[in-house]
């Protein structure tokens, strides 16, 4: 198969690669860029574990081809940490509220939520539940995730 050249920005870095047209964006991120924080749970767009941000919007990287990301700005969970190594408010809130157990779903939740919180800095419980309803978690039973989002929103608005 002919490779196709793509240029994109990932976590602030310019990337140029030649990729197979059928390569999934999720595999591109994990295998080619070695950003393994993005997880694959279902590969059919239901679990949300592979969520990243493309041009600021949460997107399932298992439902996109790498070539479709050409020219886009991509953010993965690896971008959330602060430069000094400290956690972002949202990451810290996840840890403070025991919003993760195995942590496999966590990057997907964080990417969905960090984009959501930028648009809605003071969400109600109902809004939070709706926002994360496309991300499956098999361990936590969600309630601590909701608690964490409330804390993160509060920290940011203070």
């Amino acid at each position: 198969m002919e490779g196709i050249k793509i240029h994109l920005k990932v976590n602030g870095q310019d990337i140029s690669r030649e990729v197979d047209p059928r390569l999934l964006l999720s595999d591109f991120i994990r295998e080619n860029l070695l950003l393994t924080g993005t997880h694959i749970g279902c590969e059919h767009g239901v679990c949300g574990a592979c969520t990243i941000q493309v041009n600021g919007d949460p997107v399932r990287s298992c439902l996109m081809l790498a070539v479709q990301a050409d020219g886009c700005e991509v953010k993965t969970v690896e971008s959330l940490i602060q430069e000094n190594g400290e956690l972002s408010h949202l990451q810290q809130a996840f840890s403070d509220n025991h919003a993760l157990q195995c942590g496999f779903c966590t990057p997907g939740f964080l990417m969905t939520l960090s984009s959501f919180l930028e648009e809605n800095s003071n969400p109600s419980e109902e809004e939070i539940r709706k926002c994360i309803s496309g991300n499956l978690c098999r361990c936590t039973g969600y309630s601590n995730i909701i608690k964490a989002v409330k804390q993160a929103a509060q920290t940011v608005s203070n």
Partner: protein
Amino acid sequence: MTKYVGQSIKRKEDYRLVTGTGQFVGDIRMANMVEAVFVRSTHAHATIIGIDISEAQALEGVHAILTGKDIDGKIKPLVQFESHCALPPNLVEAINPTIHFCYEDVLAKNKVMYVGQPIAVVVAENRYVAEDAADLIKVKYETLPVVVDPFKSLEKGAPLIQEHLQSNIQSNFHVTTGNAVQSLKDANHILKARIKTPRVSSNPLETRGVVSTYENRTNQLHVYSSTQLPFEIRTYIARSLDLVEQQIRVTAPDVGGGFGPKGGVHPEEIMVPYLSKLMNRPVKWIEDRLEHMTSARHSRDQIHDVEVAYNRDGTILGIKDHFIIDSGAVNYFGLTCAYNSAYHLRGAYKIPNYDSTCQIVLTNKTPNVPFRGAGRPEVVFVMDRIIDMVARKLKMDPVEVMRKNMIQAEDMPYDQGILVKDGAQLIYDSGDYPAALDQGLKMVDYEGFREQQKKWKKQGKLVGVGISTYVEGTGAGPFESAYVTIDGSGQVVAYLGASPQGQGHETVFSQICADELMLSPNEITIRVGDTANLAFGAGTYASRSAVNAGSAIQIASAKLREKVLVVAAAMLEVKSSDLQMENGKAFVKTQPEKCVTYKEIAEAARPGNRCKVPAGMEPGLQVTHYFVPPTVTFSSSVHIAMVEVDKKTGFVELKGYSVVHDAGKVINPMIVDGQVQGGIAQGIGAALYEEIVYDEKGQLLTGSYMDYLLPTSMEIPTVEKSHQEFLSTRNPLGIKGVGEGGAISPPAAIANAVVDALDPLEIMINLLPISPSKLRNWIKEAERKQYKIEVG
């Protein structure tokens, strides 16, 4: 002396997991690594006539293709897991089991027994190429009659799943106490019911996966697997490939959920190591979700036919139960779920006459194994439906019937008259079930709710409340190991045999160790999930890690403290009873400035002629302890569900969910609450959404998340939690297990609540999940019946 045990310490594991720097099997990369894809049976029962790999082999980038014939004589078939199947002699005598040997080839050779069974494996440059090649492999089958209904499987002349057996009954046993038959004669009433729990899939968000690398120089396989049981995998790789255990190291890295089915050993966990040795290069296999739904083992799938003897006042005199477990094509876990079911059915109730017969039946489905609760959710559903049905028959409140039959606090320790699976007498160690019930009723203002309910129902709002209780044997043996050391830099490192899948082992075990060694949890490093660290280990399943690994590390740390003090005493030339420890130092009580640090003590404990370790003791600061529990310890719980039913659509909305639970000594309340909430979410899934469905040809109809529904944030309420803390008498800290509990009661509590919401309409919910279409049908049927009575 517990400073950290009992506190909600934040988890040490979180930093890597929230930053995307954890390492799951799928994240492992190695130079020269190739990827494997399995070709799986598309038929539920068929003879393999031939496999044509020529086209696939010719594809560029394909390195190897193996079929069942290629491994014949080289890889032994998988058989049932002895460590979970072996029964103590007194139990064998008591229940008189028949257990037939059954097996599965690692790659099917002559015939396939279920859709999804591996029949060939392709290794290629990467997964894309391997999948292309797998598509080019042509398998010729001759189909055989398929049996998916366990009752049909029991019929004479049914197709044999395991051909060497005489029938499809893989095992059976009988457990009894008192005289249930007599109680059925003596009672005022008899209730008969068939109660089923369907097949479900555990669905950890991380699918299974294996990476294996073979090192020539040391002749060693290093296998990474997303497993609950690294030690067991090691044993079975050795056994299947004719290696010695020392040639194999198994690591469970970060594991993205397990819930039971990641325990045990799967064919892929044998095949991938074999391939890496054969090809002398690293091989990786990551399961996709469709494979997970078809091939990763399922669970539950029980059918109970119960007869219940009860009196006018609500006293239950006896229960006679005959139940079937649909085990799929292979039974790997012997009587694990089956006997768990049999010995847990009566739960918190005094029912002196009990008789249970079980048959484990083979069918053309994926094998059935333990999953969170392992046999308890099934029978708690049976028992609590019984309580509810008896109450409704007698026009009593279910709570009255519960109280009438419940074991009282003063009855503790209570002997249920039969044996636990480990052969010990089934004696509940501690607890107060009526108090838990009262506490739960208070939490939901039961009386107030009952008052309100009448009003709401008059307004057409169908709300109901349902209760379930359970008593669960947790912390199963046989043992767990801990190896605690202080290294040359003074750092405490503890190694444990029980590896986690999100339960926070690195945090809770450092809390226990910290209390013993007078440090903070942050000063302790916990290493888990690697067979290189310890000679023996068991693993994480059956709500056992806190109990067994917790006790092991507590005792090992206490012994290490003694040794540290002895060495420090020799260094300071005082008696060790004169010493005290704090912050990584030992000092003389009366002269705190006279002190030595752990680093100095470790230095003084090194072998050599300046060694300060007293003669007769091993040099070095390390202690290994294997904790062997006397028997299981009994957690208990009361769950109360509030629902509203939409009669027109059959939709059940959860209005609230409350729980009172007793897990003995709680090491970290935040983590325990998390386990409870997460378990309940899975239980709610089982109650309302989840079901593995096969058609009559044995084809899986629920192979994706479009068909197999998992609950989301919209369906799971925040559970109200309240605690009891009755210490277990069977381990030093008084811990009882908590991992599975949450998942046990929701189906029963929710079913009872739905029945209650629809009362006076007589609905029977003896089947799960309570999906809108099913409930709508039950409502229609009940309405029809009621109408008939009125006109009749």
